[in-house]
């Protein structure tokens, strides 16, 4: 999904680029004059014969402009291609190999980054003669090092990812890993780098030419500006047809690439896609007429919840008419395959869905208040205070630059004023509850193991003694031994603190071991629900049966017998 704004920008970029390319490709056939020939008197203003007048040598400026488009684009693309290729290759090798190869290559990169490009231009220019190739060489030389550094950083983070590690452990060759695993995931990052490099080289070409260090004999936008500037075009009327057009061409071309680059980056960089502007009101929420007669014994009652996402021209319904209730002290298991809408339900309850999600419901009643009707401020007071969330992916749920203790303190302070002493005591208490010694509070998230992080997240959810805890796949990404520990901990806490809990998981056995009641979801719809034992043993719903039958025998039997 890519936002309309980004799309608009992208297409504008494409349009501008098409114009520039057309100018470069067919321009010379349309413009009557030969840019290299003197076709008029020098310094002529625009007229019927010369649309943009003539330059200091009597050459047609319009003709120069279209020939210049070819030169500038050629230099820009050639230098960018070279720099990106070299930079990517060096960055990949350096980041992947590590060790002395990495050190050596990075030091070379450092040296290159310190080289002043002006004298470099002169030295290379003298040996190779001022020409397009020289300019491409110099620009490449200046640019590749920065690219290499960026690509290396990306490679470093990719190297430690699962697939790569797995391939390595299976003894795959380095080249194979680079080519099959690292390079493809790199490509989306390389392309914007390339587009950006085109920009930089076009700009650099014009600056070099402006300083008189380009190739004054070739017709490029930069060299046009060089002559315009040195023949005082800025001081006469000529700037309108001699300075503005090539300058505008540079701006348009660079802007076109910027726009396209931006759009590509939006498209390919998954990390940028995660966030959509939080409209202050939250997702668009519509309340259908509430049905009377909710029982007061229910802590939470979700009635007829719909969540839709716009998709191309239609909408995709992620949650389709979901209703359920939880009583005080009850554990509700919410089961379904990934993509079945479970987590969306959790987010909807917390009022955390962001546009473009569209939410409709008859009501989400929590302790007699309809959460969907609360103002953002009121809702904020409930979140983390009366309803807490233990999110998926606890590995990343902690802010890496704040200590655990700071983050716990923030959770308290978001809801009430408290003295230092009191806060610290509460933190120690809750840390011990989740099985962490208080000294871990001073640690930063990256210093904790996965299990410890999950414990810290649970501590954060419990710190304000909420009435309802929503645990959204709390064991994702943890190894099996730790999973068992965390489930045990949750069960333990639930019983000790008499928590009401929604436990969301795709892991039916785990849910069956924990929940009083289960709700089974498939493709956004509730397909089955009831008391845990009833559902486990007597459900006739085909989907539920399929789920239950797929559980290995040994495991199904045991928890049910042991727990109940």
């Amino acid at each position, binding site marked *: 999904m890519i936002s309309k704004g980004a799309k608009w920008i992208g297409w504008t970029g494409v349009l501008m680029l098409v114009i520039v390319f057309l100018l470069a490709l067919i321009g010379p056939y349309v413009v009557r004059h030969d840019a290299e020939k003197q076709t008029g008197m020098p310094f002529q203003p625009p007229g019927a014969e010369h649309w943009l007048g003539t330059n200091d*040598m009597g050459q047609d400026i319009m003709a120069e402009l279209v020939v210049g488009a070819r030169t500038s684009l050629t230099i820009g693309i050639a230098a960018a291609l070279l720099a990106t290729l070299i930079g990517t290759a060096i960055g990949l090798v350096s980041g992947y190999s590590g060790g002395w190869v990495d050190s050596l290559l990075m030091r070379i990169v450092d040296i290159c980054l310190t080289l002043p490009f002006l004298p470099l231009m002169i030295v290379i220019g*003298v040996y190779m003669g001022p020409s397009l190739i020289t300019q491409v060489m110099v620009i490449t030389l200046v640019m590749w090092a920065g690219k290499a550094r960026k690509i290396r950083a990306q490679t470093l983070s990719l190297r430690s990812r699962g697939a790569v590690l797995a391939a390595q452990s299976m003894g795959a060759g380095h080249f194979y890993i680079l080519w099959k695993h690292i390079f493809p995931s790199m490509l989306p990052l390389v392309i914007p780098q390339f587009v950006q490099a085109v920009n930089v080289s076009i700009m650099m070409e014009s600056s070099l030419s402006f300083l008189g260090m380009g190739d004054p004999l070739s017709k490029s936008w930069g060299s046009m500006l060089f002559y315009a500037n040195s023949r005082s075009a800025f001081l006469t009327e000529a700037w309108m047809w001699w300075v503005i057009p090539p300058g505008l061409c540079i701006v348009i071309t660079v802007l076109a690439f910027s726009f396209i680059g931006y759009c590509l980056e939006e498209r390919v960089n998954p990390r940028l896609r995660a966030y959509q502007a939080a409209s202050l009101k939250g997702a668009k929420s519509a309340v259908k007429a509430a049905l009377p007669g909710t029982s007061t014994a229910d802590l939470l009652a979700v009635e007829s919840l719909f969540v839709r996402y716009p998709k191309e021209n239609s909408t995709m319904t992620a949650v389709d008419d979901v209703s359920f209730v939880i009583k005080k002290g009850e554990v509700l298991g919410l089961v379904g395959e990934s993509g079945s809408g479970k987590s969306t339900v959790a987010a909807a309850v917390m009022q955390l869905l962001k546009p473009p999600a569209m939410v409709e419901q008859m009501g989400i009643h929590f302790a007699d208040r309809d959460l969907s009707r609360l103002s953002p401020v009121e809702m904020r007071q409930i979140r983390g205070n009366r309803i807490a969330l233990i999110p998926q992916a606890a590995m990343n749920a902690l802010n890496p630059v704040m200590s655990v203790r700071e983050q716990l303190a923030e959770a308290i302070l978001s809801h009430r004023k408290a003295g230092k002493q009191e806060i610290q005591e509460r933190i120690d208490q809750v840390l011990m509850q989740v099985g962490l010694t208080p000294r871990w509070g001073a640690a930063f998230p990256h210093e904790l193991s996965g299990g410890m992080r999950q414990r810290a997240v649970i501590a954060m959810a419990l710190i304000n003694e909420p009435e309802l805890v929503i645990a959204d796949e709390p064991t994702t990404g943890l190894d099996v031994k730790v999973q068992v520990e965390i489930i045990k901990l949750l069960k333990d806490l639930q019983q000790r603190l008499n928590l009401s809990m929604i436990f969301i998981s795709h892991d039916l056995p785990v849910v069956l071991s924990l929940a009083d009641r289960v709700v089974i979801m498939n493709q956004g719809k509730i397909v089955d629900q009831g008391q845990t034992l009833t559902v486990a043993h007597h459900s006739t719903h085909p989907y539920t049966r399929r789920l239950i039958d797929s559980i290995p025998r040994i495991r199904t039997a045991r928890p049910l017998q042991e727990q109940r």
Partner: protein
Amino acid sequence: MFTRKSFGLMLTYLLLLSMFVLGCQSNQSQPAPSQDQAQGAQGTAAEPAAKTVSELKIGLPSDAGPINIYTGNIDYLTELVFDKLFSPSPYVDKPEPWLAESAKQLDDVTWVVKIRDGVKWHDGTPFTAEDVKFTYEYYRDGPANRHTHHVSEVPHIEKIELDDPSTVRFTCAYACPSLERITFADLPILPKHIWEKVENPRKFTDLPVGTGPYKLVEYKADQYYKFEANKDYFKGTPLVDTLVMPVIKDPTAIFNALRSGEIDISARPLPPELEASFTNAPNMKVAETSPLSIIELKLNYDKAPFNTPEFRNAMSLAVDRQTILDTVMLGKGRAGLKGYPHPDSPWTNPNLSTPYDAEKAKSVMDGLKFVDANNDGVREMPDGKPLAFSLKVPSTEPSWIRAAEMLKDQYAKVGVKVTVEVLDSGTMATVGQTRDFDLVISNIGAHGVADPDQFVMSHRSSYLWNKTIPYPEMDALQKQWMAETSIDKRKEIGFAMQELFNKQPTSVALFYPEEKFAYRSDRYDQWVESKGYGVINKYSLLPDGAKKAKAEQ
């Protein structure tokens, strides 16, 4: 809904863009010139009662160091601080005595000069004949600068003695009839009490002490010069108390500054394309000068086939100088049809002619058996090597690059292939020395093309020829020239040398530029040209400057 949004965005954009463009546009709207302001600015020297001004700002296009003639040299700046025995220059018919009271030639090789009394150096030390003797000996024996060969080689002054405390006697190694008119009028006199202590003149950076009308009181390299008037100047108190000269290298910036009133005159000549906008501006005038300089195309006489005199002639005949002038200079100045040296110099043969005749160029080359045997459009030498040359131009001179592009086309028409090569000016400078070129475009100033002794010198120093390469006809003329004791006869021999030179030139004059200087007439209006120095010179700043600049007193 989205279309409305994007439309609004577009509108905002267009608005911003148009504001930007309008902002620039208003830059163009100059007030219409009123009639009386518009009438040009020549003939400024109508000699009104000398008006004094407290400060003038002069924009310089380049920096010349702390006016130490051993570390950089711009003649008109040197002239502000230093004086010569005779003034204004070797480029007038008869220079007048300046630091000298009089000069007398005793015989073919001996001159005596009476020194002016009562002149003081800027630091208060009296100026004496000792200073003159010291300076000339220093030039003769010390490190080279642009002046030294006038003492050390052409002519060669063997002995410099003091007859009495105010009389210096010069004895030359061979006849030196031109001493008064050239050497004395060209060499600035240095203070002995300072320079005898200088260890390495190339590394001497103290502010200069001279006798001239202005003292350099502040100098910031690449930034500015500041001069104060020497109130006790022996030729009259200068009319401007303080001169500030910012260095503004960018041509657009310097004329911008002139227009905005940040400077009062630009030492960078006004390019032809800007003339109209300045002559029409209020409080602005343009002074026209005819500088003694030539934009030349040099042929490397060291290399075949340029060592063939007839081929050099063909190369000269093939150049359509008028078209080049019309294009790159918009017709301002004069085409180089009167050869080398500069036709305005009193020392140049008035009958020189270097016409454009492509047909004749072709027939000369045919005669040399330089023909296009393989029909590729380029002639070959008898040994089969094509007539293909590189033409080097400095990147700092866009108009020369244009001229080079035109030369390429013109030579192509006669079957000579020329490839233009643009080099940065640092590289260009050594090209002439290492002689690693076929063709090169350069500029040669007054000292090179208006000084007859220099013309001979240039044939010895390698600029136009090298004394180690035999050139029988020229060598014979040179021998005759050196032996000649009468300055008028020497001039005639000089004419013959020039005639010979232009028949088989090693330097083709492309054009003789004209230079115009724009200035704010409301700030100062007494600029006068002194041949070879433009209008920014000491005479413009002295009472009776116009007369002094032409040596009419």
